[in-house]
């Protein structure tokens, strides 16, 4: 299993398209960092108008923690699309290349093959999130330093002390990894049905976009289904920047995401074990 997994990762990281994601994450982070370097102070004073009228704000407000938070807010919603690029390709891409039929003439079981590909995609997602942490958080700290962080919400703001922040990021990235595993499962599930990688990649992106819109619409009809949509729970990482941290809600979200991951993985294995390989 370990040998197969390492070869699966080798296959993934030998393809140039794999690095598109890493490039895009870097580019977006750099653009935001550049914009904050140039006009971050004005942006902050505009955003904090309501606060500065009533409070006296001192210190390095435009710091790495805040910039990283802004990057994550704009970027984490797009990471699923990048993960779909690789996970959606796992089975359908091999079917399209014609290698799937050759792979399946070997004494490896179909379930094992799905599991190996799932784990390889999970490792890819983790690496992408670690990379995101490096460029969004570490680079921002290098560029803007550290300081207390003001988390501005629609009606309130939360002041997080400098020393109270690093663990929150650690937890948020951990939660994001869990959220991404449900995307891996979804993309692989769709990939099992297809014989061309474009379909499952686009379908995964489409589902994520549509469900994200549903999760954000404040309409009574959608409020009923929202708790069951994985996209509602994918933004659970933000909870770690609240005070107090809503652990019950975060645990519930993690449970929903884990259920999606396990359910879709199981469905993929069951379907793939019965599938006639005609590619």
């Amino acid at each position, binding site marked *: 299993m370990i*040998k*197969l997994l390492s*070869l699966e990762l*080798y*296959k993934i990281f*030998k*393809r140039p398209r794999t690095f598109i994601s890493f490039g895009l994450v870097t580019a977006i982070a750099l653009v935001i960092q550049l914009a904050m370097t140039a006009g971050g102070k004005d942006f902050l004073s505009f955003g904090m108008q309501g606060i500065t009228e009533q409070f006296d704000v001192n210190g390095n407000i435009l710091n790495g923690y805040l910039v990283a938070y802004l990057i994550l807010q704009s970027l984490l919603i797009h990471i699923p699309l990048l993960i779909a690029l690789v996970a959606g390709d796992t089975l359908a891409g091999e079917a399209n*290349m*014609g*290698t799937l*039929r*050759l*792979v*399946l*003439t*070997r*004494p*490896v*079981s*179909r379930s094992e093959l799905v599991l190996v590909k799932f784990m390889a995609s999970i490792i890819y997602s983790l690496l992408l999130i670690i990379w995101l942490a490096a460029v969004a958080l570490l680079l921002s700290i290098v560029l803007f330093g550290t300081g207390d962080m003001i988390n501005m919400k629609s009606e309130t703001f939360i002041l997080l002390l400098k020393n109270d922040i690093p663990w929150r990021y650690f937890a948020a990235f951990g939660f994001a990894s869990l959220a991404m595993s449900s995307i891996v499962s979804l993309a692989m599930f769709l990939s099992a049905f297809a014989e061309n990688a474009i379909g499952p990649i686009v379908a995964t992106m489409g589902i994520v976009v549509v469900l994200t819109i549903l999760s954000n619409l404040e309409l009574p009809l959608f409020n009923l289904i929202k708790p069951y949509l994985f996209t509602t729970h994918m933004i659970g990482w933000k909870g770690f920047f609240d005070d107090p941290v809503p652990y019950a809600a975060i645990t519930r979200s993690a449970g929903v995401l884990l259920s999606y991951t396990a359910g879709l993985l199981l469905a993929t294995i069951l379907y793939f*074990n*019965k599938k*006639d*390989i*005609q590619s």
Partner: protein
Amino acid sequence: MSAILEARGLTKKFGERVAVNDLNLTINRGQVYGLLGQNGAGKSTLIRMLLGLIFPDQGEVYINGSHFTPRNRRLLAHVGAIIERPDLYNYLSGWDNLRIFAALSKQNIPTARLHEVLEMVGLAGREKDKVKTYSLGMKQRLGIAVALIHDPELLILDEPTNGLDPQGIAEIRKLIQMLSMQQGKTILLSSHLLYEVEQMATHMLILHKGRKITEGAVKELIDPDETIVEIDMLHNAAAPAMLATSEWKQHVTAATPAQITFRVNNRQVPAINEYLVKNGVQVTRIHAKHSLENYFLTLTND
């Protein structure tokens, strides 16, 4: 002789279309078994069922005497296969491809074996190049190397010469003969070309519309003593009538003023020619075909 591969009553339907219908076959050790049929006859579906890629609606497959089921995939360790096109990981090197398929074989395959199969298929020295730079013939040979990596007893080669140039075809043919004669491999080979099966196989099965038409030793199926002879001539309206009353009348299977077809023994062809020339028929061409070829062409023309 013991059976290495056996199919019993294999049937597969796709919707209303029956791709393979109640098919039985037995391949014994040491045979080069040709599976002959026109495109769409069901060869690939049959091969995919033998390899567990497609699940039969009915029937069973036995590898080395054991029932081959999804729970029993370790039996595939006895088999190496290439199916249709030699599709491999084009963006990786030949060596990487071999490494990947060696790992998928679930056996401890030493590096020396990788070098050995590369040598065997004539790709030594090119293994570090990406597969996308290979010619089709080289890809096909790499496909065979991949199929051989775990030293299986049985090789299943689906249309191995399809799309190759004459040199590529000759190379693959030579390789298959070497694998059979020197390495002692049992080979199942599918083709839509009779002469290919005739040249390489010891046994064959003709598949048509999913059904077995005939099966047996190639030597027995292709009877050298029975030949279909087509004789072309300059227009001669009297010739058909003349032959109808001649000593050759029972051998004539078709006659027009431009062409007469006989079913005769090879040795009788000169005598027929002499008879025709003596009787004023101006022969322009004599074309002899195996009776099986004729049979096969009749099938493929319907």
